[in-house]
């Protein structure tokens, strides 16, 4: 009797199974087949003709939602009558999400991404090249932004903005102190620091992205050939060692462990007005221009021998998904929201640093923006290679170790060795 019941139970179970998963294998294959056939058809139809959006196109757009994205989407909808749904996905989450959502058909048509993810995204086959608007993109944008959106010779991105970091200065605290060199910063901080009540002259974010600028200032680099050759690692060359030794000397004015100097702690002090100089990124422009004290940005001062740190910079670009059902509409949209006019609007609305060139007259004139524009001139675009993942992995502990007193040369050699092994090993 029980067996019978077991059988019946099983029948019930199977009904669930079949309704839940039965159709899957077949339908999946069908979908991909269709998609391939569709895109093939379009390809021959479009050819070199004008890029016209597919009839009935609707776009899904992943970006960090802000005043600018709302504005741009509205303008686009007005002009082309194509509906765009905006979803709030951070630039550094989009690749991971696209790898799963893209193939299953729920991903974005156009998504934003910082350039350090580009190599990985191309390797995973997530982005379509910027083919139709290639010339436009190349003519309006800074070369470094175009390069950062290019991988292995093919331009993929539609650059929106560039970002780097500089020295935010609380003018109420610094007053008219001279801040041309790091010696000035050190001198000021020594006078200003009050460890008991947690007042400090200068602080930085302790990630490799920020600290490496001291190494690049003396000629250090991550990858050779302008960050494109992963077989040439420069984190332990002569310049890097020199920069690292200089960085170590800053411990005089920052008398604690890097682990304790968290971003939260630093930003807290800065916003309370207990930190005079804050080395942080341009993405904080919007927030920091609203603080109750006067804020300016100056490029990082010169180190001994007159060499200024070269900050690492990145580019935020938009990309068209390979899974987009409406690639033409998506390309139109990506190009539209990164046009020169839109970049000016972006700067005006939320203070992004435009990737476009030759629009200096139309952008914000405040001291923060001007400071960053100067800083971006002496910056170095960080690599779009997938091998970049090893940089933080080996350099973060290296900075930590040197700060805690380890030998500079030996530590950097070890980090370089680790990076080489990982890149070679794959």
């Amino acid at each position, binding site marked *: *009797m*029980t*067996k*019978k*019941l*077991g*059988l*019946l*139970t*099983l*029948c019930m*179970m*199977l009904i*669930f*199974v*079949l309704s*839940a998963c*039965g159709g*899957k*294998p077949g339908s*999946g294959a069908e979908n*991909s087949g269709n*998609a391939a056939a569709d895109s*093939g058809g379009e*390809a*021959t139809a479009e*050819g*070199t003709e004008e890029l016209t959006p597919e009839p009935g196109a609707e776009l899904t757009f992943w970006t960090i939602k802000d005043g600018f994205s709302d504005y741009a989407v509205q303008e686009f909808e007005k002009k082309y009558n194509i509906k765009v749904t905006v979803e709030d996905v951070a630039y550094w989450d989009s690749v991971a999400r696209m790898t799963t959502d893209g*193939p299953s058909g729920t991903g974005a048509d156009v998504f934003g991404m910082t350039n350090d993810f580009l190599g*990985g995204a*191309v*390797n*995973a*086959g997530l982005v*379509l*090249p910027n*083919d*139709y608007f290639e010339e436009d993109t190349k003519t309006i944008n800074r070369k470094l932004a175009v390069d950062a959106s290019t991988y292995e010779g093919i331009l993929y991105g539609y650059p929106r903005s560039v970002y780097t970091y500089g020295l935010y200065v609380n003018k109420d605290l610094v007053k008219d102190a001279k801040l041309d060199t790091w010696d000035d910063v050190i001198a000021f901080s020594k006078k200003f620091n009050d460890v008991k009540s*947690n007042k400090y002259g200068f602080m930085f974010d302790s990630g490799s992205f920020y600290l490496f600028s001291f190494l690049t200032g003396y000629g250090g680099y991550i990858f050779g050939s302008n960050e494109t050759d992963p077989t040439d690692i420069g984190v332990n060359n002569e310049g890097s060692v020199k920069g690292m030794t200089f960085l170590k000397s800053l411990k005089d004015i920052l008398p604690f*462990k890097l*682990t*304790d100097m968290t971003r*939260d*702690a630093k930003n807290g002090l800065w916003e309370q007005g207990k930190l005079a100089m804050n080395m942080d990124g341009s993405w904080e422009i919007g927030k920091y221009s609203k603080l109750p004290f006067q804020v300016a940005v100056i490029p990082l001062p010169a180190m001994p021998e007159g060499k200024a740190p070269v900050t690492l910079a990145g580019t935020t670009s938009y990309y068209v998904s*390979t*899974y987009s059902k409406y*690639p033409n509409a998506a390309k139109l949209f990506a190009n539209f929201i990164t046009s020169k006019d839109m970049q000016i609007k972006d700067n005006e609305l939320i203070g992004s640093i435009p990737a476009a060139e030759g629009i200096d007259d139309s952008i914000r004139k405040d001291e923060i923006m001007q400071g960053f524009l100067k800083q971006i001139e002496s910056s170095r675009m960080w690599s779009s290679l*997938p091998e970049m*993942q090893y940089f933080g*992995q*080996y350099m*973060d*502990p*290296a900075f*930590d170790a040197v700060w805690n007193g380890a030998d500079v040369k030996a530590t950097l050699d*070890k*980090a370089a060795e*680790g990076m080489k*092994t990982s890149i070679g090993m*794959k």
Partner: protein
Amino acid sequence: MQQLAIGSKYPEPSKKFRKKAALLSVIAMGLGQIYNRQYVKGFLLLAFYVYGIFTAVTSLPHALWALITLGETETHLQKVGRLYKQVMGDHSIFLMVESLITVFIMLVLIWLYIAGIKDAYRTGKLREEGVRPNTFKQTLSFVAAYRFPHIVLAIPLLGVVFFTVMPIIFMILVAFTDFTRETMPPAHLINWEGLQAFKELLRTKAWSHTFYSVTLWTFIWAFFATITGYFGGFAAALLVQSKGIRFRSFWRTAFILPFAIPMFVSTLIMRNIFNGQFGPVNQYLGMLGIAKAPWLSDPLWAKITLILVNFWLSFPVSMLMIIGILSTIPRDMYEAADIDGASGSQKTRLITFPMVMYSMAPLIIMQFVANINNFNIVYLLTNGKPLNGDFQFAGHTDILITWLFKLSMEQGKYNYASVIGIFIFIVLSVFAIWNVRRTKAFKEEDAS
């Protein structure tokens, strides 16, 4: 039902029913039941049979091909005129998951097939004995009346098969591939690599050093985290319940507070509280004239801080449970001990402790297991820091599960993460099974 029973004329008893029924069921699932005049059930099974054959013909070859090759055509871009187009190829991971589902469905169908044969045989035998087989309605009402729990249990069972067992098998399979960020589908195909990932993780010096160190720390951490939380709770419970304590409920409430705040929040707060430079703990120590402690920046201290914070968050639960057990210990045992002149510590050691341990032992083991996998506190409090240049993608305080997370989510080394996942799975299941087997309830059922 009445109609059916009256209408059907029952044949003479014969010895051949069971063999015929079983044979018919072997030929096609459900035929045996139909022969046994269980028509509805028979046709239902027959429908499954047809579906099974259909799947076996249409999907199974593809599924097996997919499982063996993991796809053959690569996705690539093709330039047509000025525009690039994506030409879709095989997506190894999707192929793997889809074929697994197909194979699973096939396995369930095969089981059903075998069960059908057995059922036909048994019903045939009943008929030989002159018993009339149940009609479908009778079966249904019998099931609804007496086997309701089985039906309800079938739903979670199904969930276990398709949402627990299948993902685990998928994870295990990934460990034998070269699935990393460099070979991310759909642009790349994934290949079977055999034991390559195991070899690299356990043999290559850079990786094995990290693996063994992190494993060792994971067990040390789980041990201390469990012991401190448990005995802390024990001590608090004894104190709260001891004679002469007034406002008991107040003390209980006060001690449960750390548990009442979501762990997520309190851990993040602790992270700031223990900041070596800006955190209040060191500020207070400074006021007392005690040197600052490197709570989170020194490897050993960071480990101690982890255990401390975990103690603070976990002792209230143990305390509550132990208070509950304490109230079940019969008073007369203590009275008898008093008459014999036992001291307080003797009573605790010889009466209270064994009684509590008797009930708590399985829970302690489960807590140990949970601590091996205690992702939240490590990830939120230290995030594996302080950094360790000798480790591969792990810091001094990373335990296996946080390392696995970093490897997969941050580094895209999915195959290595799977190997670690298998390792954790084995360790945890050994503990879980051992624990279930030694609990009283399980033994009782075995005995009966």
